[in-house]
């Protein structure tokens, strides 16, 4: 296929902007030499910008959240209520990155930490926020240390803190270290965790913009989302909106893992053909094997069979049409040897393990899913199990406090839907009447 025709355009000559090829860009002095904190300076010190115009520029860019849900970022920012000087407001930058298959934010934080800080500051300014929390999962201890060192330097240089660059605008950044819980990536759970509570997600409405951390207006964005803000200010929303897929534009970090020759994190425009990503960017299938299936954006995005991806590009519209979602753009590539039932079993285990246990359908349903898939995987499943599984998915989806239950149900629903024969083939040949307790070995 002619590259020029894909939404990603001439991606082979794409120049990286989130992770431009600059040695030691993570160091403040290097970052400064490469337009570092220029966008922030312009926003804070020139008349061109005020909070509304920053938000509008982000709206114009068409930036959509990179944390999973793909919500338009500028629109999210504009949900913050009017400023009341007596009521604090907060920004949370979501660096929890725990969705299996996702490993891009860690690399962005390692290689371009100041871009994340600068993005946080610009977002804070746009929403008149004076404190931004950067929530990083506890497992990233080494990256937290790195971020803290660099943050300290940014403070020392007056990029963060009181009266930034003499503009009169002050904003603090606090790095919050998680301690091992996938659910903390969910925005309201992240808020509970920041507040020092058990990280139970909260029922919405009220939404964070109305009632966020400590009950105050709060906006939550993913690390990569916020890192786009300085680029948008520097080069304009319009420039941004022309990168990649028009309906879902911008640079994006693809984290490719699994059975490819060259896994890793790659920066390219949105709208890349999945086939290009696998065959060219990631060096093709390992050992010349055939592609069996893939998940396009983290464990909860519906699985796509090899025959479903022809012409499909990595953007919300195309993936929706193909029957999946963009998610976190963490792609897992599976070759023909993968036992899809065993694979699903591991996913159901993950969600069972990570359910916070607060609400009924998720606490009970995730375990039941794992139970059934385990028995199927061990060859003791019954055909009725498949129907029960699909039923349980219906019983969980959309009925819980947070979307973890949906995220747990979707892989089950879509994997059965798209690989039903493999599940049936693994069922026991002996029919066991229902009702009793079936012991799995």
């Amino acid at each position, binding site marked *: 296929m002619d590259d020029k025709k894909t939404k990603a355009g001439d991606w082979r000559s794409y120049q990286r902007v989130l992770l431009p090829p600059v040695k030691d860009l993570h160091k403040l002095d290097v970052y400064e030499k490469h337009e570092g904190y220029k966008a922030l300076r312009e926003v804070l010190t020139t008349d061109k910008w005020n909070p509304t115009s920053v938000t509008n520029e982000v709206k114009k860019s068409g930036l959509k959240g990179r944390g999973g849900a793909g919500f338009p970022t500028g629109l999210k920012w504009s949900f913050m209520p009017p400023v009341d000087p007596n009521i604090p407001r907060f920004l949370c930058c979501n660096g929890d990155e725990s969705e299996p298959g996702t490993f891009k934010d860690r690399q962005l934080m390692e290689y371009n930490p100041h871009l994340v800080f600068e993005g946080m500051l610009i977002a804070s300014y746009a929403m008149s926020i004076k404190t931004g929390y950067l929530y990083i999962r506890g497992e990233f201890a080494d990256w937290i240390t790195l971020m803290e060192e660099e943050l300290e330097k940014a403070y020392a240089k007056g990029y963060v803190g009181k009266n930034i660059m003499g503009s009169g605008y002050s904003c603090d950044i606090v790095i919050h270290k998680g301690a091992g819980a996938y659910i903390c990536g969910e925005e309201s759970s992240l808020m509970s965790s920041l507040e020092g509570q058990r990280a139970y997600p909260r029922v919405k409405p009220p939404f964070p913009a109305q009632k966020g951390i400590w009950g105050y207006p709060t906006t939550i964005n993913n690390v990569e989302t916020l890192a786009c803000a300085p680029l948008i200010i520097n080069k304009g929303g319009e420039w941004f909106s022309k990168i990649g897929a028009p309906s879902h534009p911008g640079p994006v970090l693809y984290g490719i893992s699994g059975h490819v020759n060259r896994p890793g994190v790659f920066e390219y425009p949105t709208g890349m053909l999945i086939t290009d990503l696998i065959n060219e960017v990631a060096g093709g299938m390992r050992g010349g094997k055939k592609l069996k299936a893939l998940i396009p954006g983290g464990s909860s995005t519906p699985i796509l069979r090899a025959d479903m991806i022809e012409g499909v590009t990595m953007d919300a519209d195309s993936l929706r049409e193909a029957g999946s979602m963009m998610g976190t753009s963490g792609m897992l590539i599976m070759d023909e040897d993968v036992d899809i039932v065993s694979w699903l079993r591991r996913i159901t285990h993950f969600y069972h393990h990570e359910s916070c246990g607060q609400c009924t359908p998720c606490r*009970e349903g995730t*375990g039941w899913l794992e*139970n059934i898939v385990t028995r199927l995987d061990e060859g003791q499943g019954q055909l009725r199990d498949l129907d029960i599984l699909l039923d349980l998915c219906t019983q969980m989806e959309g009925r819980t406090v947070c979307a973890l239950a949906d995220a747990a149900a979707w892989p089950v629903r879509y994997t059965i839907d798209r690989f039903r024969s493999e599940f049936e083939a693994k069922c026991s040949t002996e029919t066991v009447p229902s009702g009793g307790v079936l012991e799995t070995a």
Partner: protein
Amino acid sequence: MPNITVDNETLEFDGRPRLLQLCLETGVDLPHFCYHPAMSAPANCRQCLVEVGTPQINRETGKPNLDENGQPIIQFMPKLQTSCSMDASDGMVVRTHKSSELVKRAQKDNLEFLLINHPLDCPICDQAGHCPLQNQTYKHGPEGSRFEFRKVSKPKQIDLGPRVVLDGERCINCTRCIRFTDEISESHQLTIIERGVRNYPMTPPGVEFDEPYSMNVIDICPVGALTSKDSRFRARTWEMSKTASISTVNARGSNCYYWVKDNKIVEITPRTNMDVNEYWLADEDRLDYRIFNDNRPLGPTISGADVNWDAAYKAVADCLKGAKGDRVQFLGSAFATVEDNYLLSKLATAVGASTPMYLTHTEAGRGDTWLRTDDRTPNSQGCERLGFQPANRSALRSLIQSGGLDVLYVLEDDPVASGLCSAEDLAGVKVVLHYYNSTNQTLPAADVAIPAATAVETVGTLVNDQGHAQRLRPAKSIAGVNRTLSMEIGKCRADRHGTPFDKWYDESNLINCQPGWVSIPRIASDLNIEMNYKGPRNIMAELSSANDAFAGATYEAMGEFGVRLSEIGVTA
């Protein structure tokens, strides 16, 4: 007035009530577990899901868009919403299980989930019979189970503290108990531990769940996960009848239910009264019921010898007949009702004695800023309002010891145990004693001893420390009295489900005692003193019109929740 439509019925409302609360208050029965009106709504049980629609508002006019019939177009939210966490708003349209298959299915599905790891040991569970989970499963739940795996086993029979026992497997993780200790009692002794399907409520290591209000979590637990160490396994709920009354352990008069089986009190639970105790009851109010059951007198005595009631009343009259008024001391009682104390004061006046005094019973440090008081009596305000003074103990003791008294008339109290004087001191004094328990230490010194009906056997009024006048209702019957006790209760009392089935017909455990408003008029009549009342209702009617301190405190006005009297000395 703003209104919402629930299953095609219109409900009006004020303010911003929670949808669930509004439904419950207006008789729409929505299943729910985690919601409690006094606490935050985490919406975690997911049982109260409903379909919610709101009128589509025209951006330009700000008014609802209308359909061809002139009705507002309703936009339903894509997902079911938890009614406990939704505020009602004008024009909202709600579909519950009565009109929505989706909601019906969601309720059933949710119950299926709740039950897969539930032990289903209802036959031995104290909550059975008044268990929301059991009731809702009967009403809305699935018929069988599709769960073919091992249930999660969790710790059982754990003493969380001295009074509360946990069964972790029955817990449905609604967090009501946790929220109670965090938001209401603020003892912070409980937390959910672990995560996911492993989680359950627990104290942190080394901590006992022993706060003075711990037993409230038993009432609010929607399943049998938290039970009372004291009353567990004692009686099934359908074997007991309940009576709405008030607690008499302290001066707050928290509203409660007395639970009776075989004419014995077996349990005391809170009764909601937003003016007094809201939804709560202190542990101490629940555990002192044994004084109603144990060590009760067998009948009236004269100098320790059993006599019949007529002989006892005559003996009291004889004591008073000869005595000079200024050598007779009446002691009213902060344990007794306003009615009985009032009659006592009338008797005192008629025999020329001074206004009765009463003994105070306070224990410094017992009280708190919530429902417990230093005052260990339920009616000292009632005594004060009748003009009774607290007895000056040393002066009264000297008077007794110096032979200044011929007759000491004690209404429902124990001067010896309370340290007023010793039994020996009373050797030269004629003592008339109305008493509750055979352990009363003044009993040996009593010339005439009249067994008195306790708070659970009488009809009367008590005034709490805040000036709230409330009615006592008989919870169990006594010997020798028409059991409807002055028409204050029906022939039989309802059990928890309103079924007129109780152990009232059981003739065992009937205590041979009398309320003051029976015994005092009998004594008066032996003295030819006029004291004609049909019953305590009339006594209060008279008192509330004659004495400003009781203005408004008629039985009709007090009803179930009592009336707040104006402050003493201030007329309404």
